[in-house]
């Protein structure tokens, strides 16, 4: 199923998205008219405020002094030796403030919201990491904050719910549909329609209507920029392969984007849940078809009538039947290879990283680690694998202990 050939199809970054937010046939703005003026205003603000040097210097200062960047690039020596193959390096986004890469984006969007004169933030969350990161940014900027979270996710990610409340956010339980990330996003969009004049919607992934996919990518690409510099400085060369988990796809896009012109492989790891063959999975790029969900066109898990299917993953942050539109284009370009890891493989990787490296990874990131373990064994010892360890796993202790 996999070959070791270097994939180097030219992906012209400057071409995507176009002025209306299209990544080839994907992306766009599929929303009701009430939200269109808000998205046009956001697009305008994003294009004028974000490139401004004063915005950029404040954003950089926050990433450094508040979020703790740059995050380390760590050589996982015992894990690599255990696998007896390629060297595995971990980009330690779990060490960023709030415990995941999500803070990079929420600081960027909150700063933009403040400069647009918005006083309230809303967000959807699955695993709760984006919710915590949004609540954190809201506290830092003195803004009101409301987080929409499916009741099922509130149950399985309880520690993060408590953190959001401590940070002063209101957590709104969502009881429609499967009560997970998809439904939280539906409810956040519904609330935004009614509060659009003074409220900024902080979307947590490279998904949603334009300009969110490009904006979130730009706020997250610091991950890859740092990684590229760190690996070159440390080893004098580039990695053979980059690996990141993909739910909506923000940590993957953040890591990969700096390497788009480099001769290396990139692998996005989706959730195979209870197994692709059971139908209970979240492998949107692997198994989905093209459709429109949450404001953009992309691959989605859907039936033949265009009704969205339920996703499943042990990792709440990957439990989503959609994916960011640029990932769909990159899949079609064959620029990134997308694979899937099931619940059990992710748990094995979770435990391996705990005992071999003293790092408790998020279940989402454990999917990327699991694929790295597969890759390392079949690659020569002089090759380097970089894994985006996108978050820490404290939030998952309940799920892991319940599973055993």
């Amino acid at each position: 199923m996999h070959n070791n050939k270097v994939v180097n199809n030219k992906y012209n970054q400057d071409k995507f998205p176009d002025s209306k937010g299209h990544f080839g046939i994907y992306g766009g703005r599929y929303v009701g008219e009430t939200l269109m003026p808000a998205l046009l205003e956001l697009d305008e603000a994003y294009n004028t405020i974000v490139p401004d040097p004063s915005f950029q210097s404040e954003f950089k200062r926050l990433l450094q002094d508040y979020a703790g960047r740059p995050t380390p690039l760590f050589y996982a020596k015992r894990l690599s030796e255990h696998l007896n193959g390629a060297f595995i390096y971990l980009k330690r986004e779990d060490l960023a403030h709030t415990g995941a890469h999500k803070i990079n984006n929420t600081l960027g969007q909150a700063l933009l919201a403040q400069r647009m004169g918005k006083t309230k933030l809303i967000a959807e969350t699955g695993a709760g990491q984006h919710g915590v990161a949004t609540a954190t940014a809201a506290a830092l900027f003195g803004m009101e904050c409301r987080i929409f979270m499916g009741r099922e996710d509130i149950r399985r990610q309880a520690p993060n719910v408590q953190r959001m409340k401590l940070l002063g956010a209101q957590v709104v339980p969502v009881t429609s549909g499967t009560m997970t990330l998809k439904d939280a996003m539906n409810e956040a969009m519904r609330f935004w329609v009614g509060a659009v004049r003074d409220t900024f919607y902080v979307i947590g992934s490279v998904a949603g209507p334009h300009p969110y996919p490009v904006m979130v990518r730009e706020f997250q690409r610091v991950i890859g920029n740092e990684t590229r510099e760190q690996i070159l400085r440390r080893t004098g060369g580039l990695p053979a392969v980059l690996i990141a988990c993909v739910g909506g796809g923000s940590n993957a896009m953040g890591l990969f984007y700096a390497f788009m012109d480099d001769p290396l492989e990139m692998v996005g790891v989706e959730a195979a849940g209870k197994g692709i063959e059971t139908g209970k999975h979240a492998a949107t790029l692997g198994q989905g078809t093209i459709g429109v969900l949450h404001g953009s066109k992309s691959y989605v898990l859907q039936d033949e009538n265009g009704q969205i299917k339920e996703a499943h993953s042990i990792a709440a942050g990957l439990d989503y039947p959609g994916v960011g539109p640029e990932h769909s284009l990159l899949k079609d370009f064959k620029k990134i290879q997308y694979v899937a890891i099931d619940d059990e493989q992710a748990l094995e990787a979770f435990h391996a990283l705990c005992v071999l490296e003293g790092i408790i990874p998020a279940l989402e990131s454990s999917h990327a680690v699991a694929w790295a373990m597969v890759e390392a064994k079949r690659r020569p010892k002089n090759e380097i694998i970089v894994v985006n360890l996108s978050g820490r796993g404290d939030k998952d202790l309940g799920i892991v202990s319940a599973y055993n």
Partner: protein
Amino acid sequence: MNRIDKTFETLRQKKEKALVGFITAGDPNISDSFSIIKAMCKSGLDILELGISFSDPTADGPAIQRSSARALKQGINLRAVLEMTGRLREETSIPIILFSYYNPIYAYGAKAFYKDALAAGADGVLVVDLPPEESDEMTSQWPGDELDLIRLVAPTTPLERMIQIARSASGFIYLVSKTGVTGSDGLDTEDIKDKIGSLRSATKLPICVGFGISTADDVAAVASVADGVVIGSAFERLIEDNLDNPDLVSILANKVAEFKKATKIVTSQ
């Protein structure tokens, strides 16, 4: 002149406003839904908006979310709604607008949808999450222009954008009365009057107002300033409250008659 234009022309002559009813096709089940809608069409509805359920209705409030969920549980899909449209067309001559999110139409295919909708006797389509910026991909596949594309104008839409939207609209303009999802509370008639004033400077098309209209008094108030009044969630709530009531069909028919009466008491233009 198509059915939609003719309807507004006739109403103008009768000095009445249009009663536009939104109803989710297939709620509470396909056969009862057909009976309810048929009775509504014969009780004074001027235009029918037939809702095609979608699993993730992000523009809708709780009443229509639940009605969509009930219909989907009964196995409703776009093909079944088109089939129902054909059967309704044999019973009524009022305009039928298909009301959908984009994904079911995208999955069906825009060209096939156009042909099959017209063949079934539909007069227009309103795609709630397909703004003018994205709608070319659908209409460019349409082999003709017999199906009206009903456009939405929102309270947040600036005048310049209203003009742009009106330019590509046909049939009538659907003015959303307030920010928020369908079925939200509260109605500000003065504000609606202002919006209609702006919109009249941008278009000659009839203007129908919807969102948050739930009583006969609301209908009369909106009818005094608009060309038509759209009711949706109020009907869905009535269905939901009477799921086990043997008189469900006549309850809906009576409600339509009550609302229709309110469109005839027009105080000012």
